[in-house]
């Protein structure tokens, strides 16, 4: 009887602490970074005041966009149409909500969420049915959604009932808790948390990790991919609605900013572009980090364009470091 050396399952990751660090280290790191930036921000005299809701306001749409992108990337895809879909929702909501009461606006908003999820599902279906790579399909849909947004609202305009705007810019219960943040966390808790550890979530991660193995394991790959894009669409809808709430108007070109930055926030938040790795908590913090960096620069009197250059460079540098980190991983 021959035996092979050292094969009986020795957990390779070492002690649990080491493994925990490996899996969650990046996310913790992003939150530490956010904390440091927040503290630094507080020290800048230009902005004194309550926990400035301004930050939450600026970062809210990006946070949702980052969540949308993260879901898709985790499932092994990418969505270049995120920004345009956000524009579309923003524009439609602003155009029609201006004439609505608060309750109707909320109902309309819910309808739009259904619509954006359907839009995402449509994109996902196209990807699955045509077998065309997701970059190309979402690139095409970027055109389509942007075009639609332009058709609906040629120039920035529209509005929304005051209470609705409050949802984005106001507080809940206390000066220190921006209502936008509450909605963000609620969305996370309702739409992501229950799925993540259950079979739909596992299926999502599996197709991003190794689509073939997932298929052989009995995962409905097509179904799951469409689901990922639909969920992404839902978060895009939330982003668009929050953009209406925080900016007060609809702007057909507003979404452009979010495509690149949603990917950047996802990557910064620990979601690996190869798929199967990461969560949504990291990208949320990363969205705030990205927004905060620009805010700090502007508060310190840096010219807006320089701020963009610096922000861009920082994103690249961080991602380069992240790239090195990936090389340490066993896989890839």
């Amino acid at each position, binding site marked *: 009887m021959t035996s092979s050396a050292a094969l009986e399952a020795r957990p390779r990751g070492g002690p649990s602490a080491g493994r925990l660090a490996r899996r969650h280290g990046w996310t913790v790191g992003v939150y530490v970074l956010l904390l440091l930036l927040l503290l630094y921000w507080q020290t800048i005299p230009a902005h004194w005041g309550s926990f400035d809701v301004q930050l939450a306001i600026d970062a809210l749409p990006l946070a949702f966009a980052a969540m949308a992108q993260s879901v898709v990337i985790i499932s092994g895809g990418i969505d270049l149409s995120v920004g345009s879909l956000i524009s579309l929702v923003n524009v439609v909501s602003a155009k029609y909500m201006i004439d609505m009461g608060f309750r109707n606006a909320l109902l309309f908003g819910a309808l739009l969420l259904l619509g954006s999820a359907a839009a995402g599902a449509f994109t996902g279906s196209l990807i699955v049915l045509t077998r065309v*790579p997701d970059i*190309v399909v979402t690139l095409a849909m970027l055109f389509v959604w942007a075009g639609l947004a332009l*058709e609906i609202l040629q120039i920035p305009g529209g509005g929304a009932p005051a209470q609705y705007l409050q949802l984005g810019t106001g507080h809940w219960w206390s000066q220190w808790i921006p209502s936008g943040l509450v909605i963000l966390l609620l969305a996370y808790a309702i739409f992501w948390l229950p799925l993540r550890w259950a079979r739909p979530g596992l299926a999502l991660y599996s197709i991003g990790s190794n689509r073939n193995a997932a298929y052989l394991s009995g995962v409905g790959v097509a179904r799951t991919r469409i689901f990922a894009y639909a969920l992404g669409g839902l978060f895009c809808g939330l982003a668009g609605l929050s953009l209406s709430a925080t900016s007060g108007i609809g702007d057909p070109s507003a979404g452009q900013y979010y495509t690149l930055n949603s990917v950047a926030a996802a990557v910064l938040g620990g979601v690996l572009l190869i798929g199967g790795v990461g969560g949504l908590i990291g990208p949320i913090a990363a969205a705030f980090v990205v927004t905060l960096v620009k805010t700090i620069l502007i508060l310190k009197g840096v010219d807006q364009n320089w701020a963009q250059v610096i922000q861009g460079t920082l994103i690249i540098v961080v991602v380069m470091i992240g790239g090195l980190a990936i090389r340490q991983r066993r896989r890839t």
Partner: protein
Amino acid sequence: MSAGSPQIASPAARLRAAQRLLSDNPAIALTFIFIALFVVTDIVNRAQSGKAFLTPTQVSTTFLYAAPLALLAAGQTLVMLTGGVDLSVATTATAGAFITSGTAQAQGTGTALLLALGLGFGIGLVNGIGVAIFRVNPLIMTLGISSVTLGALTIYSQKRFVALVPNIVNTLGSSRFLKYVPYDLLVWAPIAALIILGLRYSGFGRMIFAVGDNPVACRLAGVRVWQVLLLVYALSGAFSAVAGILLVGFNDAADLGIAAPFLLPSVAAVVIGGTSILGGSGGYGGTILGALILTVLDSLLTILNASQALKQILYGSIILALAWLYARTSSGD
């Protein structure tokens, strides 16, 4: 004696062989589409305004307009062959445009052009370093670089505004000789020849395909993949700079948005041309036709008074339809 060599069955397979011929040589189908579009545009134009479109002037104009797009798509083709994508081609072109017009007066035309090319090459090099050495995803790297470039250009454009476009650049960008031949073809054609021949007959060309097809196998065969990628992105930047020079010649002034409308069409032209976005197969010939098709399409849509919005929706649908067509015919399983 090898068991299991696949056997060719007869008539249905001959049809499929024809289909495969078309997908392996998309140039044939694309040329048809190009010509067909021209004809359609002609018909529509006559219906709209009584004027013909299928005229030598219009054909020449189409080539004139297509050249910058085709140059942006040239770099894009090379990058996509390696399995990446370059979303910074537009901003690099804009940088080329600005440097040309900004330094021509002080440094002379020749130097200005060299600086523009050098800058383009340099920006591409940075992209290449990020992608090849730091293993950053090309999407992120090039998008990030483009945003940094744009910011830097905005600052530059605010500081000095000498809108001097040298005469020769003007001529290259907008004039024709022999009445119908655009000068920019003198720039585009040699580059196109270089790329097409290079891809097919040079070791570097082989390596571009190889790296896009299977970078791991390349490494095991001794190829230093980072070298290939570095040069490919740098070339993309250089070609983009050339496009920028032509654009500033056409526009007669540098402008931050001068190349922006060409970014996504540059990807579209490559997709239409049949290069796989996953890398490893394709070529520039198809891209050229893709650029031409897109240019004619744009004219057609303008004649139809299509709103910007409608154009965009159409672009998107076309990219999708063509990509789907290629996916169907090429993979076969």
